[in-house]
């Protein structure tokens, strides 16, 4: 079985302090692996625990510094690493199209992927679109919000426990599949120190993009800034029933709730 795990390197935003209206610059911020992608990799590795024949391949898109994220993936237990070379801003559509091209190239070299798994969203841009886009572009079934995945007695089925707003949903699916992983129901493993060393010496395969017109950004990044402070503060003094209606309408007017 082959599993491709898409891992993104994100900016570590925990020490980011922006004033209202202030523009974001990445200067001085550390980079780390998107935590949701670590869940994705951990989920893939639980399948490998069940079936040691499984080949887990990690894929990242970015410049050379992105390889740190692949090395972490290899340290945790991935077998192979690919970096799709890229620099500068790409919107989510372009990112997804390029990733899909890279997946085709990897599949040519390594065989078809039974599972492609990504984190449900990144912690920096937070769009949560890549898994859905991959599903559309590659015409494969998407299962989102996986908190647990495991092989069943049936070799052609995968059992997935989805995290839902009010609980969990357990379903079975045929391969091939695209999965987005959220916080898992089990812990993420610690890499072993010998694996860390091997990972730092491992070969990272480089894929050069062959961007078609479709795989170019159709949007332009102008600026990222913290939203300005709201100018009006409203205190609703009505009773619970009426007050809730007023608050709801205000939130709808501001496009925070759509229905």
């Amino acid at each position: 079985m082959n599993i491709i795990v898409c891992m993104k390197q994100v900016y570590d935003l925990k020490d980011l302090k922006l004033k209202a209206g202030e523009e974001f610059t990445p200067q001085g911020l550390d980079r780390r692996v998107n935590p949701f992608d670590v869940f994705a990799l951990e989920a893939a590795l639980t399948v490998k625990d069940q079936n040691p024949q499984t080949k887990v391949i990690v894929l990242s898109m970015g410049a050379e510094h992105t390889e740190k994220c692949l090395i972490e993936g290899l340290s945790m237990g991935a077998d192979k690493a690919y970096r799709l070379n890229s620099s500068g801003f790409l919107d989510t559509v372009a990112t997804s199209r390029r990733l899909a091209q890279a997946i085709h190239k990897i599949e040519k070299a390594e065989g078809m992927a039974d599972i492609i798994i990504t984190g449900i969203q990144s912690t920096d841009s937070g769009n949560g679109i890549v898994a859905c886009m991959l599903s559309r572009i590659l015409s494969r079934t998407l299962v989102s919000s996986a908190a647990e995945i495991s092989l069943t007695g049936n070799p052609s089925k995968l059992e997935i426990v989805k995290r839902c707003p009010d609980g969990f949903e357990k379903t079975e699916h045929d391969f091939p599949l695209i999965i987005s992983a959220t916080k898992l129901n089990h812990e993420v493993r610690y890499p072993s120190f010998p694996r860390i060393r091997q990972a730092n010496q491992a070969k990272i395969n480089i894929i050069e993009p062959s961007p078609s017109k479709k795989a170019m950004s159709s949007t332009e990044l102008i600026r990222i800034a913290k939203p300005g402070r709201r100018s009006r503060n409203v205190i609703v003094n009505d009773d619970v029933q009426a007050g809730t209606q007023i608050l709801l309408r205000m939130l709808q007017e501001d496009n925070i709730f759509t229905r």
Partner: protein
Amino acid sequence: MNFELTQEQLQLQQVAREFAQNKLLPGVIERDETSVFPVDLFKEFGKTGAYGLPFPEEFGGAGGSYMDYVLAVEEVSKVDGAFGISYSVDTSLYGGSIMNSSAPDAIKKKFLAPITYGEKIGSFGLTEHSAGSDAAGQTTVAVKKGDKYVINGAKCFNTNGPLADFTVIYSLTDPALGTKGMCAFVVEKGTPGFTVGKIENKMGIRTAQVSELHLENVEVPEEQMIAKPGEGFKLAMKTLDGGRIGVAAQGLGIAEGAFEIARTYMMQREQFGKPIAKQQYLAFKMAELQTKIESARMMVYRAAWMKDNGKPYTVPAAMAKMTCTNVAMEVTTEAVQMLGGNGYMKEYHVERMMRDAKITQIYEGTNEIQKLVISGQLFR
């Protein structure tokens, strides 16, 4: 000259840090009160290969360096100093005794490989009630009988003693010969006549299990003799040189842990209308402490580097041990002071760190013995 950690080292430091924060920190106060050693956590951390970091892979180690090991001990000790010493004794004193010995490779592998991934735990038996700083004054005796040795005597203050599957026991073949007859054996848990005595009730490092070990007609096969008569004292001293780097790393970690708690507290705690970090007297004190921590770090990292690079490290190790543990005592004491009344209360951690720091100035050679080691080389 390069002061930067490698990518690998940064990664392993991160793994140890996450383990300490996610696993050791919750429950560290309760464990200190109940003196219960977290065996499960010790074994879990072992799965990373941490306890075998400085040992070659052919002996079942993780194939890293002493510097790697120092980074790992430092990280766990920032949160739990007792875990730090159990780790350090397992690796540098038990594992070090095996690796430094002249035992055949097969024996080294047999007794080292099981501890490197935490499946088994090791301990080190040198100190006796009448032989502390004067390790040569011991009375445990091993007498040859056929292809076995029969050991009689008692050891004390054995860290990991009650938990250990394997203990290195240093003993004399003939008390009249003194250290000239000192040898060392690996004694397995459960060997008839080998029992755990009093388990100590301590001021600090309360979860570390420290006990007496009694040996009454304990028969050990000759192949488990890892230092032949006359080699034992040298093996113990060489092993303690490495152990001191481990204790130095533990002291550094304790100091850093307490410093960070104080620093964070001082930015939040307001008195006289402003955070106490704005009081220049206190801020300057913290500047001094941070400088001392940095100098301690340089010394222990350098001692580990010297060991890794095959240079003589006895004096650097003694200097690092003395400096780091004195800094640990000073920083933890000041951290309690910075937190005022809160610092004296258990939930703020620093009082525990202060109690843990005290022992680091005492074990693996008191800091007075470190001065003996340093001055001994100075006026040869």
